[in-house]
């Protein structure tokens, strides 16, 4: 039971990096980045290939760099090429499928059973200490900590403020003499580097990467983000970022619990879809309720004189 919880916690932490990516693109820039699935796999594939080549530490920046490139392409398509932002994400996602297989040398599965990764490095470091059983958790915690602190600082800089304002009111950004196309490009490059890092860490923690590793990630991350919003509400940046992380962990723990109660594993994606629908449609329907109520209670007929 404890180990199930611990695994869920680790998975939550690792996927929370993707949730933080969406926190930046979806909550801040107001762009729903549908290239997330492909970018997650890209990070996993690039990270695995670099680790397999014997560079466990280089694998993280390499994966993030690949994510930056992918985000750059998505951003250029929507800011400079007149392609709708949703469509730009879908197009890049599709293209990435081929690129990911190419990165993996034509295979759709890579094994890292005997490969040195950041996780094995941490395992070696913690050997014979009380924390030796927690090496994965520690790596994931470190990564999440660094990214949350980075976001907390970055979103308060002038560039960070401009990125937040871009999703809020692009006209206002322009009148502050900042090009919203520029802030969108920077924002998507950063968010995609988080997504790729997330994929890289997941692949290394499960010691394999498969071409479908990222499928459905965007919905899962969105579900986590919206759960997190329910926890953190509308506080400051750090609070909301931590909320996103908590959302990711809660999502994984609830999912693990559901598995214990014999929910089949293949239900994961349906569950994430339902959560996203409920989180977005719920408030909308709630706001429409008075109108609905009025319709149902209004009596049609002759005016009573």
């Amino acid at each position, binding site marked *: 039971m404890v180990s199930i919880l611990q695994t869920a916690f680790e998975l939550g932490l690792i996927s929370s990096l993707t949730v933080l990516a969406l926190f930046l693109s979806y909550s801040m820039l107001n762009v729903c980045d549908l290239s997330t699935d492909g970018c997650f796999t890209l990070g996993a594939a690039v990270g695995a290939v670099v680790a397999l080549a014997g560079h466990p530490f280089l694998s993280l920046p390499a994966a993030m760099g690949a994510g930056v490139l992918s985000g750059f392409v998505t951003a250029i398509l929507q800011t400079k090429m007149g392609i709708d932002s949703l469509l730009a994400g879908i197009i890049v996602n599709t293209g990435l499928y081929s690129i990911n297989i190419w990165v993996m040398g034509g295979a759709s599965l890579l094994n890292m059973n005997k490969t040195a990764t950041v996780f094995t490095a941490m395992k070696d470091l913690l050997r014979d200490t009380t924390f030796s059983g927690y090496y994965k958790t520690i790596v994931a915690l470190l990564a999440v900590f660094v990214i949350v602190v980075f976001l907390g600082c970055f979103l308060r800089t002038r560039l960070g*403020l*401009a990125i937040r304002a871009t999703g809020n009111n692009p006209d206002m950004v322009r009148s502050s003499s*900042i090009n919203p196309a520029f802030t969108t490009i920077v924002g998507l490059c950063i968010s995609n580097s988080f997504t790729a890092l997330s994929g890289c860490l997941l692949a290394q923690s499960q010691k394999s990467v498969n071409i479908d590793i990222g499928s459905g990630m965007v919905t899962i991350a969105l579900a986590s983000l919206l759960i997190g919003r329910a926890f953190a509400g509308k506080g400051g940046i750090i609070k909301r970022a931590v909320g996103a992380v908590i959302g990711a962990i809660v999502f994984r723990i609830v999912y693990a619990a559901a598995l214990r109660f014999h929910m089949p594993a293949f239900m994961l994606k349906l569950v994430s879809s339902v959560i996203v629908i409920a989180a977005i449609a719920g408030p909308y329907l709630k706001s429409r309720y008075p109108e609905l109520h009025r319709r149902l209670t209004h009596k049609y007929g002759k005016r009573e004189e």
Partner: protein
Amino acid sequence: MLSIRHISKTFNPGTLNAKTAIQDLSLEVADRDFISIVGSNGAGKSSLFNAIAGSFFTDSGSIHLDGEDITLQPEYIRARKIGRLFQDPLLGTAPGMTIEENLALAAGRGGWFSHITKEDRNLFRERLALLNMGLEDRMQQPVGLLSGGQRQALTLMMATFNPPALLLLDEHTAALDPATAEKVLELTKNIVETNGLTCLMITHNMQSALDLGNRTLMMNQGGIIYDVKGEERQHLQVSDLLILFREAAGKNLDNDRMLLSE
């Protein structure tokens, strides 16, 4: 200062919906001019501002600001020299961000990676206090919580934080209640005077068109049909302006629905 030479702009050219919003318009604005602009709905007033601010490029002609040719400069670059307010108080601020964060963006102090410093905060507080709306004590609140009048006053403050070479006001008090409108107008006057700004202001209020500033333009069908300043303007009454308005607009006046207030 601002020199507009023979600009024209047609929307949807070559289609049934073709609409010439500005037609061969020329205008010379002197340093520290405060010009009020009146004209019926659809006269092209906002289009003129859009052309100056760079929301679109004109089809022909040229625009120079402080001797620099800005005819084809992108909007966000021109924004360094041009501040702008719209009728809708929601347009000028980011509602999800705090007053302080909005001001920081408008102030644009420091590099890309600079944070808001204590010194910045003191400066913001000082400037907000000038608005007399108590906003200096609410700097950590999101702008979305402010009323329309407060937001418009804040936008005015932001647009003039670094005094722009040119300030464009497009019916910026039209959505406010009379008392608030008066207050924002008063603020406008103060800010323009203390900073010695050059300012163009569109209004449908004939009285404030004559009260404020040193020169008044009337626009019709994409052109300037009346331009008055100095002595002549001092003797001008609202009723004279209305007569001119009617004369100029001529026959299409009967068909146009005009929003005029005396």
